[in-house]
C-alpha cells in the first residue's frame, strides 16, 4: 500500500486515494515483490486450520431468487461522471471494463445513456408501428413480435459514438471505465427488422427508415433502408433474458457495427421515407466537426478500436513476474483479425492472443501473458479488422480531424505503468 501512496511525480492526492481504494479491492498492494516463487515460513492460516466455510452449511438454493454477484464484488458497478451533463436523466453511466473479462458484458453492467430518463413500458401496452412509404401500415404487439418467424441470436458490440470523446484534446480521465466504458457486448435475441418491413411492404421510392423511441426524448435516427434490410434486429432479449429496462425494455433496435445512438431503445415506430429526416441526433449531435469548421454527417460506422483493460488506472499491476495483460477489440466494419500490443509506447509490437469468439461487429477478447520486472511500461493495443483497417494513433487521427470532433475517437490508448504498479492515462510522443 505504502508504495502506491508514495507515488512519484507528485500525482494529486485524490488520484492516489482512489487508486488505493481500487487496489485494496483486489486484496493486496505490490507486496510480494521479487523474482521467483515465494516460500512460506509458516502454514497459511487460510489452509490451517480448515476454514469455517468448509464446515458449516451455507445458504439454501433460493436464498437469492434472482442471483446477484458475490458481495466481494460490490465495487464492480457502473459509474457516472456527473460533471458531463446537467441532469442524470440525460447522462451516461459507464461499464466497469477494468473488472470484466471474456467477450460478453453482464446485463447489469452494460453502460447506460439516456436522453430523457428510463421509460417504463408494461409489456402488454407495448406497440410497434410500421408506416410511411409502405403498402400496409401495421401495428404489432409484443406478442406479435415474439411470434414472428426467423428469430435469431447474435452477439454485437454497442459503442456510443462519443466513447473516448473526452480524450480528443488530451488524456483526461483516469480509468478505462471512463475513457472507453461506453461500450457493451451482449447476445441479442430478436427478429430481423427486414421481416417487419416486408410484412408492411416497402414502396419502391423508400430509401430511408426513421426509428423512434417511446421515451420522453422521443429518440429518433434516420437509417438507410439498405442497412435496415440487411442486418438490423428488432430485439427483445439480451444474454438470454428480457432486455433490461435501461436498455429499452421491452424492445430495442440493434444496428450492428453502427453508433450506439442509432440503436433506439423502447422502439415504438419505424417510418419509411425517401430522404433522411435531419433529426437533432444527426445534425446538432453525432456530426463530427473538423478543424476547418466543416462537419461530417452520417458517420454511422464505428471504426476498429481496442483498449487494454488490465493493467489500467483502476486495475494497477500488483505483482512482479508473470502477469496477464487483457483487453478488448472491436470493429463496426467487420471481424477483428489481429491485435498487437506494445509495452514501450508504440515502438515495438507483439501480436496478442485472441481468445474466444471473433465474429463480425462483436467485441473480441485478447490476452498477452508477460513477465514484469518492475520497469516502467507504456502499454498500448492496436486492433486490425478483416477489411485491413488498422486502429490509428491519436496523433494520426488529430491530423485529419482536429480535436473538436467529439465523436468517433478510436485512437490508440496509452497507459503508463510506473515502477510501483500504479497506472495512469497518458499520451506519448
Amino acid at each position: 500500500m505504502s508504495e502506491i501512496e508514495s507515488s512519484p511525480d507528485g500525482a494529486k492526492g485524490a488520484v492516489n486515494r482512489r487508486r488505493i481504494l481500487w487496489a485494496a479491492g483486489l486484496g493486496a498492494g505490490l507486496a510480494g515483490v521479487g523474482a521467483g516463487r515465494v516460500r512460506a515460513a509458516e502454514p497459511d492460516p487460510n489452509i490451517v486450520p480448515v476454514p469455517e466455510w468448509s464446515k458449516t452449511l451455507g445458504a439454501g438454493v433460493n436464498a437469492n431468487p434472482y442471483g446477484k454477484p458475490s458481495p466481494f464484488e460490490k465495487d464492480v458497478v457502473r459509474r457516472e461522471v456527473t460533471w458531463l451533463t446537467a441532469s442524470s436523466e440525460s447522462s451516461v453511466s459507464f461499464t466497469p471494463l477494468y473488472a470484466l473479462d471474456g467477450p460478453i458484458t453482464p446485463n447489469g453492467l452494460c453502460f447506460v445513456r439516456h436522453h430523457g430518463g428510463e421509460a417504463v413500458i408494461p409489456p402488454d401496452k407495448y406497440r410497434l408501428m410500421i408506416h410511411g412509404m409502405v403498402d400496409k401500415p401495421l401495428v404489432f404487439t409484443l406478442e406479435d413480435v415474439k411470434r414472428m418467424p426467423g428469430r435469431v441470436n447474435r452477439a454485437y458490440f454497442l459503442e456510443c459514438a462519443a466513447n473516448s470523446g473526452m480524450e480528443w484534446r488530451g488524456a483526461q480521465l483516469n480509468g478505462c471505465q471512463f475513457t472507453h466504458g461506453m461500450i457493451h457486448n451482449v447476445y441479442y435475441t430478436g427478429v430481423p427488422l427486414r421481416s417487419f418491413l416486408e410484412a408492411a411492404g416497402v414502396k419502391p421510392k423508400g430509401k430511408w427508415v426513421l426509428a423512434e423511441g417511446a421515451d420522453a426524448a422521443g429518440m429518433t435516427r434516420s437509417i438507410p433502408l439498405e442497412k435496415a434490410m440487411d442486418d438490423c434486429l428488432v430485439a427483445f432479449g439480451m444474454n438470454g433474458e428480457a432486455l433490461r429496462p435501461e436498455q429499452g425494455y421491452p424492445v430495442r433496435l440493434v444496428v450492428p457495427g453502427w453508433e450506439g445512438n442509432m440503436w433506439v431503445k423502447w422502439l415504438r415506430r419505424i417510418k419509411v421515407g425517401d430522404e433522411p429526416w435531419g433529426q437533432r441526433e444527426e445534425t446538432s449531435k453525432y456530426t463530427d466537426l473538423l478543424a476547418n469548421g466543416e462537419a461530417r454527417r452520417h458517420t454511422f460506422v464505428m471504426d476498429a478500436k481496442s483498449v487494454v483493460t488490465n493493467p489500467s488506472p483502476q486495475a494497477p499491476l500488483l505483482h512482479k513476474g508473470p502477469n496477464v495483460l487483457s483487453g478488448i477489440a472491436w470493429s463496426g466494419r467487420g471481424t477483428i483479425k489481429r491485435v498487437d500490443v506494445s509495452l514501450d509506447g508504440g515502438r515495438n509490437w507483439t501480436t496478442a492472443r485472441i481468445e474466444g469468439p471473433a465474429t463480425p461487429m462483436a467485441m473480441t477478447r485478447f490476452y498477452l501473458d508477460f513477465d514484469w520486472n518492475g520497469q516502467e511500461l507504456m502499454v498500448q493495443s492496436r486492433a486490425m479488422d478483416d477489411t485491413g483497417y488498422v486502429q490509428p494513433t491519436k496523433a494520426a487521427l488529430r491530423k485529419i480531424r482536429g480535436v473538436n470532433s467529439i465523436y468517433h475517437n478510436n485512437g490508440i490508448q496509452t497507459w503508463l505503468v510506473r515502477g510501483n504498479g500504479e497506472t495512469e492515462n497518458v499520451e506519448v510522443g
Partner: protein
Amino acid sequence: MSKSAEALFLALALAATAPVMAGAAWAASDAPKVATAPQAAPAQPPASLPVPKVTELGRPALKEEIAAWNIDVRPDGEGLPEGHGSVSDGEQLFLDNCATCHGEFGEGAGRWPVLAGGRGTLKSERPEKTIGSYWPYASTVFDYVHRAMPFGNAQSLTPDQTYAIVAYLLNLNDIVPADFVLSRENFPKVALPNNPNFFDDDRTTSEKEFWNANPCMKDCSGPMKVTARAAILDVTPDEGKDAPKGNLE
C-alpha cells in the same frame, strides 16, 4: 433421486457439454442419443440475415393512430402541422417554459444546453454549437422542441406554441427579425447559415491511410516519452472535487 430424475439430470449434464442441440427431440429416455449426435457450433454467420416469409402478424394501423405518433418534421417541411406563431409570443412562452434551463436569451443556465450565439466559433478551440452557429435545418428545431421539450414535459406544446417558440429561437440567433411570424407556409424559406458546411461520411477516402495490411512491428519510432497526463487535469470522478463543465454531447 428417482430413476427419471436421474435420467433427466444425465440429459442435462450431457446437453451442457454437447456444443449445440440440432433442434432434435431429446426426451430424457433418449439421452444417450443426444450425446452421440453433437454438431459443431456454427460460426456466427456474416452480416446478411435469413429472410423469413412475410406473415400475417400485426394488424393495419388506423389513421388516428398514425396521426398520434407521426410527429417527425423533415428539412423540406414535410410533417409540419397547420399553424403559426410570432417571435413575441414565442418570447413569453420561452420565458415561461424554457428559460429556467436555457437562459432568457438561450445562453444556457449552468450546465444546461446553450441555444443561441456561438457564430464564428466552429474553428476555435472551444466551438459553441447552437441553432445559429451549427445546426443545418430549422425543421430540426421544430421537430425537437415539440418531441422532447420542455425537458420532462415532452409533446405538450401545441403547433402554434411550437411555431412561436421556434420563431423566438430563430430571432435570438439573428435569423429572423423581431416582428416575424413563422408558419407552415413560410417555414421552407428559413435557411440556417451553417447548412453548407455539412458533408457525408468520407472516411473510406479521406482516411484511406488507416487501411494498411502491414503495420510496423519493430523499431517503429525513437524512444517514446510521456507528453500528457490525465492526473494533471484530475477530473476523474471522486468524492469532494470541483468538476469542470462537461463536453459530452
